[in-house]
């Protein structure tokens, strides 16, 4: 296995009086897709938000590229090289597609090469480049949201349920785009409920339940073991294609 880029050790997170993460241990290896699976309310989104510092870990350690980032403010964590794509098409709807991308490309003006890559992954963004992002369709908003994470080279990209609520044709396009991203050698921690997408993209998988990681291993292993799928997720991946 390649070396660990992100490590969570015994991470607990409280939101108000609720104890959401109850000792999460997770390793995201450098390169490839790590899929975070689990039923609704298992703590997947909270894990991503805790990594980003949007919710503070009340206990435990988060290490990114060897450095402890547990107590660092969110902008510092983002600057350290982690991009975050929250669920629900997290774009700035009052700004244009171009402005959304410029905001994410913090290193400076948009370079033609970077834009070409984004447009080859998501051609719709080129068509609506000067338009207010709020006017885009749901799928296009999600593409813009992901494009923002890809416009600047990042060491790690956290993506929360990108295919949620999207039409099957758009999901297929998105999986194609993610495969390109994977080929380019990116490291992605992906929360995904769509098991077909999860199986096609994932190298490593972690399954969460009740705020803990209950399984961690190779995606191929989980995909091949129906008994394990049933025990961890209560279903078979094959029946969800």
């Amino acid at each position, binding site marked *: 296995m390649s070396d660990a880029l992100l490590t969570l050790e015994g991470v607990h997170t409280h939101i108000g009086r609720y104890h959401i993460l109850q000792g999460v241990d997770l390793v995201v290896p450098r390169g490839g897709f790590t899929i975070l699976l689990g039923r609704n309310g298992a703590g997947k989104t909270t894990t991503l938000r805790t990594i980003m510092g949007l919710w503070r870990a009340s206990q435990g350690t988060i290490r990114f590229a060897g450095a402890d980032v547990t107590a660092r403010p969110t902008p510092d964590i983002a600057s350290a090289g982690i991009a975050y794509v929250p669920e629900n098409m997290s774009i700035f709807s009052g*700004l244009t597609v171009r*402005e959304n991308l410029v905001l994410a490309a913090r290193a400076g003006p948009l370079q033609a090469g970077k834009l070409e890559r984004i447009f080859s992954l998501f051609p719709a963004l080129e068509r609506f480049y000067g338009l207010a992002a709020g006017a885009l369709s749901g799928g296009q908003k999600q593409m813009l949201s992901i494009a923002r994470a890809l416009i600047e080279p990042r060491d790690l990209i956290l993506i929360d349920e990108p295919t949620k609520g999207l039409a099957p044709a758009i999901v297929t396009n998105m999986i194609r785009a993610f495969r390109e991203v994977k080929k380019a050698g990116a490291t992605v921690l992906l929360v995904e409920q769509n098991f077909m997408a999860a199986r096609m993209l994932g190298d490593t998988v972690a399954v969460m339940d009740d705020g803990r990681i209950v399984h961690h291993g190779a995606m191929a292993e989980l995909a091949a073991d129906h008994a394990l799928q049933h025990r961890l997720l209560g279903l078979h991946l094959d029946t969800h294609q």
Partner: protein
Amino acid sequence: MLARILSRDYPRSRPLTLVLVLILFGLAFAPFVFTGSQPLNVAAKICVFVLLVAAYDLLLGYTGIVSFAHTMFFGIGGYGAAIALARLGPTWEALGLGIVSALVVAGLLALVIGLFSLRVRAIFFAMITLAVASAFAVLASQLSGFTGGEDGLNYQIPEVLRPAFRLLENPVLGTNVNGRIITYYLVFFVALAAFLVMLRIVNSPFGRVLQAIRENDFRAEALGYPVVVYRSIASVVSAVMAALAGIVLALWLRYTGPDTTLSFSIMIDVLLMVVIGGMGTLYGAVIGATLMIIAENYLQVLMGRLGEVSKGVPLLSALFSADRWLLWLGILFILSVYFFPEGVVGKLRALALGRRTETSAGER
């Protein structure tokens, strides 16, 4: 050239462009077009409020911060110039010292308030600014030896700016170019320059981050932008611009008191101007300030005339009496908010965008 001056932020609606050009020319040539002192007073007040309202829009419309301390910074500007001129005499040095002190105090105070309270939720920040502004107004009223208390301060301004000063021997277009006209143009050009600077700021990368923060501060943080720092800088810029508006008002009125700068009713006026003109569009500040100040100054006269015309008609004469002008002003506000929920600029831009979309769909 025009693109650079306007930072490529055009009005994006033909009627809006026309109205803005009319306002610009009206203000630029006010001393030569209108006779009497009231129109010039109204024009100067419009210039001051365009600056004050645009500075507030930078905070409310572009950054999403609700502050009730804007008139406090306006007052700091006014009192800064007033105290320096009253205590040190009507010289340029005194005025310069007053200006620098006022701008520095306004900027520092905004920074302190911002860094300490912009972390809290919007409503709490609004309450904190309200408390600080109220405390400042009480302080200005109590320190009467320094600020003139409730009576305010009367003072002389440098000679060149006084009405008795004549720049040219002969009148130009029937108007004597005296110190009053020079002061008017000082107010006009300061307001114009500051407005263009703010237009540049909101269209810069910094302005884009402010708009992103307004839409969703969590997302902006997740992209790596320290929200509190950006909000604090916006707050400082807005405060400095408000103080600048206070300084030019102090020069124009040659009087500074609580009623002209610190009053809460001015804060309400500024809020209404931003809402009527259109939040998040600096051009809205121009439209909102012009509409409101003209209404405040001429609605009473118009009502008086209508009252005279409708004399003898029982209900109408009572409704159109000059004393009822505030009622009509209120009705105008309600109607404008009802018909222009996004403000005049927002509505005109939406109409223009709708027309453009229809045209391009027709061409396809």
